[in-house]
């Protein structure tokens, strides 16, 4: 039986939380007018942490 999509491990959940936080920081800095931290945080959040959190067991 395939493992449930919602049966994420603790490690995956921590990563998902980290992804959300980093993306939130990115958008907050973007709203502030930031053009250095914001893109860095958003790229790390969307392209590294979020995919990793979905893939990792």
């Amino acid at each position, binding site marked *: *039986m*395939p*493992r*449930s*999509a*919602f049966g994420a491990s603790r490690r995956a959940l921590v990563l998902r939380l980290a992804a959300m936080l980093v*993306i939130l920081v990115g*958008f907050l800095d*973007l*709203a502030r*007018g930031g*053009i*250095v931290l*914001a*893109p*860095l945080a*958003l*790229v790390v959040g*969307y*392209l590294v942490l*979020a*995919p990793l959190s*979905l*893939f990792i*067991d």
Partner: protein
Amino acid sequence: MSTAVSETLRPSYRAAAVTAAAVLALYVVTLAPTTAMWDASEYITAAYTLGIPHPPGNPLFVLLGRVASLIPVGNVAYRVNLLAAVSSALAAGIWFLVAERVLAQWIEVKWVRRTGAVLAALLSATAFTVWNQSVVNEKVYTVSLAFFAVVSWLTVLWCDDPDGRRADRILILIAYLIGLGYTNHPAGFLVGPAVATAVLVRRPGTLLRWRLILAAVVALGFGLTPFALEPIRAAHHPALNEGDPTGCKDKIGFACTFSDTTVHRLMANVNREQYGKPDLSERQAPFSAQMGMWWLYFKWQWLRDPHGDAPGPMQDVLALLFLSLGIAGGVVHYKRDRASFWFFGPLIGTVTVALVYYMNFKYGASQSPELAGVPREVRDRDYFYLWSFSAWSVWAALGLVAVWRSLAERVGPTPRWSTTAPVLLLGAIPLVGNFRAASRAGDWATREWARDILNSVEPYGILITGGDNDTFPLWYAQEVEGVRPDVTVAVTSLLNTDWYMRGLLRRPAVKYDSAAGPAVYRGRSWPVPTKPILSLTPEQLSQVPEYLDVREPLRFDQGDIHAVIDPRRLEEGVPLRSDLLVLQMLKDNIGQRPVYISRSTAGYAQALGLDAYALTQGLATKISSTPVASSNDTVAVPGFGHIDVARGLALWKSYGAPAAIMRRGDWVDRPSAGIPALYTVTALGLGQALEQQGRAGDAQSIRKQGLDVAEGARITDWFVGAVPPSPAPAAGSDAPRGTTVPARP
């Protein structure tokens, strides 16, 4: 799965990484050192300023490009170009894995499998359009290609074991990446039908697992959230803010960001309403012609021969060869690895036939030149089929391996792989045949063109331009390199939109830097403008009609200017909003600050009835407040009008593009060759004026320089005959939605 089989199927990640690194090295060697024609400057500027390029705005690309622009290597344009190279190299590495995975089902020898996989990476990386688009960031399509490849690999992994522990996670990740890919470009969704087909064929019951489907939908939705960048960033009014997707007028705020105006403008951007393409049932060219366009570009992939230098039908023969190899590869794929075939086959179908139907293009710019008068795309659209050619290359490689195997089995009782390996040299044909045309190494022409035309304008001038190639490079020069930011560039193709003028009026005045400007403007004081370029209030601006439905000549009077505008000379046969705003700019600024019309617009000053007030100064035409009269330095040249000889010569000496064009020795993209032609026309016009002044030696010298530029761009045949032709249209424009003008009664 037995241990032996599982060992065979184990992906060679390290070899794939080495292959990707080799492809990256090839791209770096042939990488553009700066910007290029068409959309390259727009995207580089958007990345650098964290701005918003044309709809849908490509927020993920902007983020990636901005991060790339921060990497301390080379100049900003080079860094963003590197993003394209890395994206395509990543895709090549993944095609290695996909090809190896298919080969693992029918080739027992490891080094043979790996060689076939390298072949897939090599062919896909050196197909002309893939290569040429990977060595400059002209579009966002190389990033899309990387997404396609990653999703392909994930789907292969899912197909391998759809009931495994990680199968659900892979599907949710795929859904997320499809959403995220959409925020780079809507093409991100193109991979969706192939994934759906693979799931339906491999494990259809998956689609009935509602909790999994719900999770995938949520993941896809989350992947779309980078679009939030657009209204947030737009509220800060960056230099590049296309569509202006915000309701905030001055500064960002909660209420204006979450207003109906913001939502309406954002959705207009995301849905590309600005372009308003016709319904798919209304074909812009026969479908057969649209497939013919794809075939033309397919032929380019294996031997790009822009000037017909290759002997006889070589390009056609090679195209048929690689078409046949691809078909053979597809058959092998179907027979040997059915599971991944049901992803890869539909993918190729989607990015080829379905995409051709969906894009619904007019005839291609270079297609069937013998058909005069058919509606044509402003440029060649081969880049839209980059994914098609890249994926087809994988099949072509599989087909070549099939040929190799067939030969190896005929030579001896056991396959003689080494003996028959020379057949693989066919896979190196695109590498060799496309090297010259695909490489952009050392090509500085576009950057120099931008500097040259900006410097043709006096300090604080307004420059009216016509389209992509006489506008985007100027944005790049001003916003990224800081060249002549005192000049206000106003492009007519965008003046028809409501957001563009808002941005122009918001644009801050920048002080002219005399030391950085051309010598010809030094030693004089230039009054700093104190008023915006238009006197209209936002309310008045919003009331300017889309067009005036008049067919009779119109009068334009301002001070000593008395012009008669014949609507038939205008592009649409009636004055558009852009024409009305240009006239208003003349009204508000003539005598206050210099107003120029770029000569790349091919006679826009004349179309506005301003012939008598037009004075050619280098690459631009200055609109004078009084009729231009001939004098010692101002010479009337038949076919050109009045030329400011002293200014023109001084500017010509400062121009950088002629040398850059000659150094390159080719201009592969023919639809933009009007730019080098403009230099030649400028030199020929100056030569004619010098001749009339009795300066035969100077005249001969500058004519020679102009013709050398034509030779450098390989457009000498455009200038056969002694009489200088009229300036060629050079702007090129993927114009936003054309105003719907009623047909002439």
